[in-house]
């Protein structure tokens, strides 16, 4: 393992950004989000979770993929792609897990070329969490705050320095390219990091357990709960906004739209949300999910029942974003607890 002293981070940013677009958690007006790093940005590696997860790096909120021109009834179509290597530095382990869940959707047959290209072009560096907060519950999904198996490089914040471990070929390559800024980590330093990791995981798991945020069994229980009264108690307070889905690292729904001036323009895909009224609204005016009740149910059923039935895993990584940001506290942790409660009640 390697390490980098924190004083050298500015040089690291410079060096990385000279070879690729460098996405870092950048603070602006009190909000920390991933953004392409520019000289003078205030990088915040302490903030636990960015408001918007780094899914917008691999799956941008708006992505033009085609240009067109209509001329005398003739149609010209050209693919449009913004290519380029990038480095994503500072994704939390839950963020990385979120990306691997997106992988399942976009990389399954037929593979989504736009997405897979972005995945190939990027190197993901994850920073371990030393202090998960009250809304975090990644351990409920068998994730570790101190470890992101899907990251190319894993980094632990040890105070004055970051311990640095390449976990993939891409990671090795990037490590090699910034070797001048790294040092070998001593045996004790590695041991200290691994101990820290174990401590944090144990503490976090205990906290989540105490809250009753245990999803085991929920995917089975929910199979019979489509018509359950439980949705009644949740949906009324929902504002029907898009916060919970837009800031969720696992939500992958998108819309496709054209823009144009005269007869020339582009086509893009952009995030969409099952919480919006027009998500399933058909041209005929019919809507299979006409009220917030069906829409709220869809969100939780998708994450906790449908996705697991297709891919074996929950579509939630316990990042706590919806717990922190839903303006009316309609979050997945409460649903897990309630549904889990249904199960133990009937046993």
């Amino acid at each position, binding site marked *: 393992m390697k390490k980098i002293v924190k004083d050298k981070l500015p040089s690291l940013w410079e060096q990385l950004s000279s070879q690729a677009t460098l996405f870092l958690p950048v603070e602006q007006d009190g909000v920390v989000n991933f953004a392409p790093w520019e000289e003078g940005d205030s990088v915040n590696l302490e903030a636990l979770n960015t408001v918007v997860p780094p899914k917008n790096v691999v799956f941008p909120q708006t992505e033009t*993929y*085609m240009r*067109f021109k*209509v001329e005398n*009834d*003739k*149609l*010209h*179509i050209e*693919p449009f*792609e913004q*290519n380029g290597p990038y480095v994503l530095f500072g994704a939390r382990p839950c963020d990385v897990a979120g990306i691997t869940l997106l992988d399942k*959707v*976009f990389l*399954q047959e*037929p*593979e*989504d*070329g*736009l997405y*897979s*290209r972005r995945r190939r072009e990027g190197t993901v560096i994850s920073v371990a969490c030393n202090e998960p907060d009250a809304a975090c519950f990644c351990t409920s999904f068998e994730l570790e705050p101190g470890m992101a198996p899907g990251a190319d490089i894993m980094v632990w914040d040890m105070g004055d320095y970051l311990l640095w471990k390449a976990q993939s070929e891409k990671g090795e390559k990037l490590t090699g390219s910034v070797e001048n800024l790294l040092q070998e980590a001593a045996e004790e330093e590695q041991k200290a990091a691994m101990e820290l990791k174990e401590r944090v995981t144990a503490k976090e798991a205990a906290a989540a357990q105490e809250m009753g945020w245990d999803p085991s069994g929920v995917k089975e229980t929910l199979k019979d709960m*489509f018509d359950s009264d439980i949705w009644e108690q949740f949906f009324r307070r929902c504002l029907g906004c898009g916060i919970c889905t837009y800031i969720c690292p696992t*939500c*992958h*729904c*998108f*819309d*496709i*739209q*054209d*823009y*144009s001036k005269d*007869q020339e*323009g582009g*086509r893009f*895909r952009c995030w*969409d949300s*099952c919480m919006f009224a027009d*998500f*399933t*609204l*058909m*041209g*005929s005016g*019919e809507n*299979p*999910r006409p009220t917030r009740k*069906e829409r709220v149910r*869809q969100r939780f*059923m*998708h994450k906790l*029942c*449908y*996705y697991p*039935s*297709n891919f074996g895993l929950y579509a939630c990584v316990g990042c706590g974003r919806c717990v922190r940001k839903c303006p009316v506290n309609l979050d997945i942790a409460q649903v897990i607890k309630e549904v889990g409660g249904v199960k133990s009640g009937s046993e």
Partner: protein
Amino acid sequence: MAQNNLLLPQVAVVEEISTETSDIKTFKVASQGGGSPLEFLPGQCAMLSLPPVGEAIFSITSSPTEKDYLEFSIKKTGSVTNFLHEIEEGYQLGVRGPYGNGFPLEMLKGKDLLFIGGGIGLAPLRSLINYCLANRGDYGQVDIVYGARTPDDLVQRAEIFDNWPRASNTNVYLTVDVEWEGWDGHVGFVPQYMEEIGFAPENRIAVTCGPPIMIKFVLEGLERMGFKPEQVITTLELKMKCGVGKCGRCNLGDRYVCKDGPVFTYAELLNLPPEY
């Protein structure tokens, strides 16, 4: 480098447009170099692109045995379809697909087939009907019950009045909802007519498509006639964007209609949330 961008359409030409009813037209679409732009199975769909208006998904109404073009029967319902109704022959549009599972051809082999269609719902059925008639030996008796609100709302008139009734071992039963001047055929709703005629469920598969309310009564009628849910097939229509199970828009429970559908047996639908 353009990678396998699933969402990228190919350019195709509208070769022929025929007016079916006051709000339905059928479009023949071929590749720029001629020939069908896609290989597909009956019951599958394709996404038609009309930049700058957008894209929409339609079932392919021609049979795969027709190699020269694809046909789409399209009713005016929104911006893309309104625009389609304005274009003229020779207009170029984008096509991508085919999407969906298509009808279970293996399961239909050797069976008597009962088609029940309403209005524009004939479109997906027609692909299968013509496919079966082109491979006549593989199927038993073919019965087609088709209706619309008025005689003017019946589509594919050449086929329903001439071609299909003339095919061997094939019956066509037409009906309209209301009495109409010049119409001396049957008057009444499709589900009732189907029951009046009466079809035995033995060795028969029913395939139905039409407005949701018609499908509902057809399913009930079939059940009364002794059809089991496994013997009944229908095809669904939901809002779709990607066509490949990624945009998350068209799910019924854990199934995506664009990918795992649009064709389902009634037995399968009974196990899925009724969000259609």
